[in-house]
């Protein structure tokens, strides 16, 4: 069981560095956890940072919903821990939420965010490598 960061999952929607590795992960049958905010993050990137049509944005999100991830609801405990850790380490709360979910469950977090891994120094983070 692993936690996947949105920076990893979104690679399935475009052919970019690491896309094949993400496909292997998702196709492995291993249970993969994601916080429910992942859909908002991916929706925001598709809607505001791309030249996709509204229909293509919706199609992309539908595909992400079909990937069979186990969704983790962000409760107050996760959010408070994430906000506190983000403030201490100078990161965004968004990526820290994924890290706190992994930390609390003793799982690996797979991310493509090199700066987040370097800033936090968390030993449970694995950087996605192609």
């Amino acid at each position, binding site marked *: 069981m692993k936690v996947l960061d949105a920076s990893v999952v979104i690679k399935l929607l475009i052919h970019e560095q690491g896309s094949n590795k993400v496909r292997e992960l998702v196709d492995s049958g291993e249970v993969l956890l994601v916080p429910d905010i992942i859909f908002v993050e991916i929706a925001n990137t598709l809607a505001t940072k791309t030249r996709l049509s509204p229909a293509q944005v919706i199609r992309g999100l539908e595909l992400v919903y079909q990937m069979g991830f186990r969704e983790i609801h962000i409760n107050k405990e996760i959010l408070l821990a994430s906000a506190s850790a983000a403030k201490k380490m100078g990161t*965004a709360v968004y990526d820290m939420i994924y890290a706190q979910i992994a930390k609390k469950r003793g799982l690996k977090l797979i991310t493509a*965010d090199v700066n987040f891994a370097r800033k936090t120094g968390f030993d449970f983070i694995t950087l996605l490598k192609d």
Partner: protein
Amino acid sequence: MNWVTTNLRLPEDNYMELKLTAARQRTSLNALIRNRLGITIQPANKGKFWHLIDQYAKTVSRKHPGISFSQKLIADRYEQ
């Protein structure tokens, strides 16, 4: 996988919360509970699913040559 249909007794408050969450996520109570238990249903036809993903990614890549959505998402987090 064999499936079993069962009744489940829940406190009313928890039940209402689950119903509301399911409605907000536009999913069923069944799907929500299965998801929270870590039971995932893979697409019936994995080959077809990956074909759809490939088609989508190909179209998107043509529109965005050399662009990393991953890097855009990461940048987005720090622009809020």
